[in-house]
């Protein structure tokens, strides 16, 4: 899967599943502050990513993920390392 395809897929999931406004999806947006993704939404993201990318996010690695770009990069790295 190409990186831009992964990013498109992540954006689609954030809009459809977490119901985030598409216009807010800027790479520099902070997940908590700007996108309003709270601790409960993160729990759902674990399930959504597993269903759609086939791997499980690791909670201990998420502390480094602050912005949407961090999140893209995290998923891209995991996709390519699997």
């Amino acid at each position, binding site marked *: 899967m190409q990186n831009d395809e992964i990013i498109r897929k992540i954006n689609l999931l954030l809009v459809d599943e*977490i*119901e985030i406004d598409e216009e807010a999806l800027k790479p520099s947006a902070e997940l908590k502050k700007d996108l309003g993704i*709270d601790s*409960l*939404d993160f*729990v*759902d993201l*674990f*399930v959504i990513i*597993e269903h759609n990318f086939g791997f*499980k996010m690791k*909670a201990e690695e998420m502390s480094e993920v602050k912005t949407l770009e961090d999140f893209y990069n995290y998923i891209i790295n995991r996709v390519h390392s699997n």
Partner: protein
Amino acid sequence: MGIYSVIGKNLTEVRESLFSGKSGIIFDPHRKDLGFRSALTGMVDRPVLKGVLDRRMRVGLPVQGEYAYIATLEALNTAGLDQSYLDSNEVGILYGNDSSAVPVVESVDILREKKDTMMIGSGYIFQSMNSTVSMNLSVIFRLKGVNFTLSGACASGSHAIGIGYLLIKQGLQDIIICGGAQEINPESMASFDALNAFSTRESDPARASRPFDRDRDGLVPSGGASTIILESYESAIKRGAKIYGEVIGYGFSSNGEHISMPNVEGPVRAMQKAIKDAGIPSSQIDYINAHATSTPLGDSNEAKSIITVFGADHPLISSTKSMTGHEMWMGGASEVVYSTIMMNHSFVAPNINLDNPDDSTASLNIATKTTPAEIRSFLSNSFGFGGTNSSLIIRKV
């Protein structure tokens, strides 16, 4: 008041169904596929809340919470309470609910398959607790008063109103959102079906629930939600709120006997305590909404209880479960709504399907047809597993 029921999705639809004696019972083939002894059930569409409530509010809301949200919206609207009032005043919630099976089943199914709790997601915990309705509605409506759930089996909704009435009478709250909710799904009813307590008159669903009839063969499970805004008289007058009725009596008791078989003496004490609490002669009660679920023993024992308390010259009686089926955790609240509708529109809804009484029910003054009636006050009975009993008396204002 607000209602989301198998005989109507709002007060107007329900009033029309009560007046015309419409049944909300269907045959659900899926239950047969699952191995149910009886596939009869009350049924109502699931509310569509996407675009109405945001995702976080929906994720933790089980189906009976969705019913309760719709019923509560109508109740707040008819009570003239908007969000700005709820934000600036202490309004509480006491709701009756005693199960939430589907989220429990689904979350454990995921765990068994995935062997990882992180794959369960965030919503199931809030959906699966018995207090799911009060916890969700208190967040959705940003309530700041008393907030808990009453679990009293098939008397849950009635006890919720009774306890709310006592809190208001004590001066501890001015306004409490009271009610009862009941999920409709096979998961919640499978173990109940196992008790041989459900009617198997599957060839004629609308005639299966037949309280007090000689040929009754069991109850029909049902569900939905019903909300009543209880408010101190002073507060309601000050706000200029429409007052549908006044709760004047609450009586409760426990049978102290069998876990599922009802007796006569327990309901007698609940009714007597309610009448004493109301401080009115029983002759001023013009209608009894019976608990009668269409089981052979339950209806017979309630008939004896009513005769014991009221004597041979008792008020008109009907069991609205003949139309709705048994709404269980919701029933005690919805039947207060049904009876209050009758009181405000001067009729008694029919106990449909009563073709032939038996020896124990023949002496009851049962409305088998829609009957014009001026109701000064009514008594509503609700009884449940464990022998819990609740009787409420509501007066016209």
